[in-house]
């Protein structure tokens, strides 16, 4: 029998993987069908005039990669431990960690276990909860044939996270998930399947980090499927901080029952090239989707991001807000679509995307799209790309702040409104820090002082220690008279 870790994708490799895991026949058949789809489907290419990211990915030699990496169970490597320490928040309900192709650590509070919450790796879920996996895994939310790459994912997925929140269970503290990638020439597939039953609520924070040797390459392929049942609320945050030698293909989608709501908070900072497809499937009446996205690219990074707010029911709401900064020769394509199906009346949908270019060689193409087939809707979209305002820069410099730092301050300010939308403080603080550190010439302590100050003023609020002027503060208001 061939080595399970041999490089290359093939039908034999699919069979080998499934046998190695001891999977039931139905999962093997699902994988084999997916493999056939992969072979049949064409790789997605971009529109004419795009920045060529998809073509670059299509030309990538997948066959050099190992579809499965054997991982020793047990002790985590020091690098993982360290990254984990940064990510951990004291208040958490559970933690699950995938190292390369396998989940190596799972913890969940006893209280939640007793309430019937299930947090496990997907391999285990296939064995223990086959009905649910058969019903929800790559069926309605992200179907196998969504693209050539999702088909490859379905054929070779491994590890993965399975979360089931029973009806009415509200999980206060977040669940944390980490994917750590450090094998050279690995194709790591991770899958997240979240099922939030009626009237439940949960916050799930997933992070991607890598430590692949610098001269080597690797691929991370993930699919995130979120089912928000009736009146369920799910908040899914993803911090992607992969090394710039990792290729990344990601599909994230939610499927909403009536009044179900899902918020995606996405921060894409790393990877060599990223193809991201993210959507909200608003198929339940009164459901709502929110996407808050932040990206920062430098060097030769290439991102292609596609978002879809799909309105296919009565009175659904969606809001998409994306902001990103590009520097060096990096390129980002963003295609944000609002699609309102016939009969999806009383829809409200909003989309905005803003790119800030810090280098003349960086390129951004942000394109909003709107397809409306209902008549009782309110929808708006907008996209802008620009450079740092020279007058703003001069203003800060005249206050003694050196140019590079002034640029960093403006970038920080550019991101701030989106960062304020990130509900989880730990994530918001670390993201601010990552952004500052990505910018050239930052002082050692700058990120910390900036972040701490921002947080402190936030916490203290407006009124603490307020100076009360004599009499009514209104008396002191200045009226403006125009000439």
């Amino acid at each position, binding site marked *: 029998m061939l080595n399970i870790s041999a490089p290359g994708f093939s039908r034999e490799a699919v069979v080998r993987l499934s046998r190695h895991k001891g999977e039931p026949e139905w999962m093997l058949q699902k994988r084999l069908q997916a493999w056939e789809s992969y072979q049949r489907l064409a790789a997605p290419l971009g529109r004419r005039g795009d920045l060529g990211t998809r073509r670059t990915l299509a030309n990538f030699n997948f066959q050099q990669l190992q579809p499965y990496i054997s991982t020793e169970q047990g002790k985590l490597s020091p690098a993982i431990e360290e990254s984990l320490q940064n990510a951990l928040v004291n208040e958490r309900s559970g933690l699950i960690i995938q190292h390369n192709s396998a989940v190596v650590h799972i913890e969940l509070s006893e209280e939640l276990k007793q309430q019937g919450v299930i947090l496990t790796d997907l391999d285990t879920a296939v064995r223990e909860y086959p009905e649910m996996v058969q019903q929800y895994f790559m069926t309605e939310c992200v179907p196998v044939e969504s693209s050539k790459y999702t088909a490859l994912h379905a054929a070779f997925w491994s590890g993965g996270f399975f979360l089931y929140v029973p009806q009415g269970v509200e999980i206060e503290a977040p669940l944390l998930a980490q994917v750590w990638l450090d094998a050279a020439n690995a194709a790591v597939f991770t899958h997240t399947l979240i099922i939030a039953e009626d009237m439940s609520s949960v916050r799930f924070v997933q992070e991607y980090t890598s430590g692949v040797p610098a001269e080597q390459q690797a691929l991370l392929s993930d699919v995130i499927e979120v089912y928000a049942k009736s009146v369920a609320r799910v908040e899914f945050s993803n911090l992607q901080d992969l090394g710039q030698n990792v290729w990344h293909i990601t599909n994230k989608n939610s499927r909403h029952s009536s009044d179900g709501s899902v918020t995606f908070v996405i921060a894409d900072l790393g990877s060599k090239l990223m193809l991201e497809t993210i959507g909200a499937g608003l198929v339940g009446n009164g459901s709502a989707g929110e996407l808050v996205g932040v990206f920062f690219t430098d060097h030769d990074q290439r991102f292609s991001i596609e978002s879809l707010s799909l309105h296919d029911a009565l009175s659904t709401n969606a809001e998409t807000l994306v902001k990103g900064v590009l520097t060096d020769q990096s390129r980002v394509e963003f295609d944000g679509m609002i699609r309102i199906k016939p009969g999806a009346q009383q829809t409200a949908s909003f989309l905005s995307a803003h790119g800030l270019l810090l280098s003349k060689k960086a390129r951004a193409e942000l394109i909003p799209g709107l397809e409306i087939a209902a008549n009782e809707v309110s929808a708006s979209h907008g996209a802008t790309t620009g450079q740092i*305002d*020279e*007058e*703003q820069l*001069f*203003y*800060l*410099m*005249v*206050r*003694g*702040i*050196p*140019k*590079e*730092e*002034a640029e960093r*301050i*403006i970038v*920080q*300010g*550019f*991101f*701030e*409104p989106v960062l304020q939308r990130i509900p989880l403080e730990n994530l918001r603080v670390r993201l601010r820090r990552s952004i500052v550190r990505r910018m050239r*010439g*930052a*002082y*050692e*302590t*700058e990120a910390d*002082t*900036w972040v701490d*100050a*921002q947080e*402190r*003023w936030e916490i203290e*609020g*407006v*009124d603490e*220690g*307020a*100076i009360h*002027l004599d009499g009514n*503060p209104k008396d*002191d208001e*200045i*009226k*403006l*008279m*125009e*000439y």
Partner: protein
Amino acid sequence: MGSELIIKNLHANIEGKPILRGVNLTVRQGEIHALMGPNGSGKSTLANVIMGNPKYEVTEGEIWFKGENILEYSPDRRARMRLFLAFQYPMSIPGVSVANFLRRSLEAVREGNRPLEEGENPSGRMQKRKTIPPAEFRKLLQEKMKLLRVDNSFINRSINDGFSGGEKKRAEILQMALLEPEIAIMDETDSGLDIDALKIVSESVNALTGPNLGILLITHYKRILDYIRPDYVHVMFNGRVVKSGDSALAQELEEKGYEWLKPEDEESENGEPVNA
């Protein structure tokens, strides 16, 4: 001896068009100078050129501050030498809180006159910098806010974002109070203010004046000079200072306008009407 700002035969262009045509002016610490003149005479350009706005190209002349020719210095270095500009149109910078900005600005100005972040750092290591402890900064800021009777809600807002015209001007004066410049240029601080607002802003400025602060007050209305009494008044016309005097000159301008000061040789140059 106090600091001196000496401008010698300063010529400057914007997009190739000459605006300053040989300005001579000296402002010393402790003195208040009013710079008046009609619209388009080059007053705001002078303010921007003194601070090193890259939009303008200096073609001739010198700017000396504290015994150094500062023409080649970056705007931030000039500021760290304690030169200050209160902007006519302060920029709003969304997402950056006034408190964070002022703290950083004060830290920078306290670093003093030396280049920062200019050129590559050969060690490749990030520099450490001095920071002002938040408690100390907060105390200082609140003192200044009390002095200028500025409401506390200022500090948690984004810089000038959604500020009214009056609030922006007061925020500029608050910055001036905090950064303690030796020479401050105030570019039409009175514009856009009604009488009440003008009074409040002027009182704030008067609270800061003294032997340690020299002011170059740019205005084209005499009104503000009723509140802030200048020691000297200069009139600018077509890119030059054409007349200087004491505060009586302001009164004379109020009565006679600017036209009588128009130098005859300025009538036309190269056969084209001068209207810079």
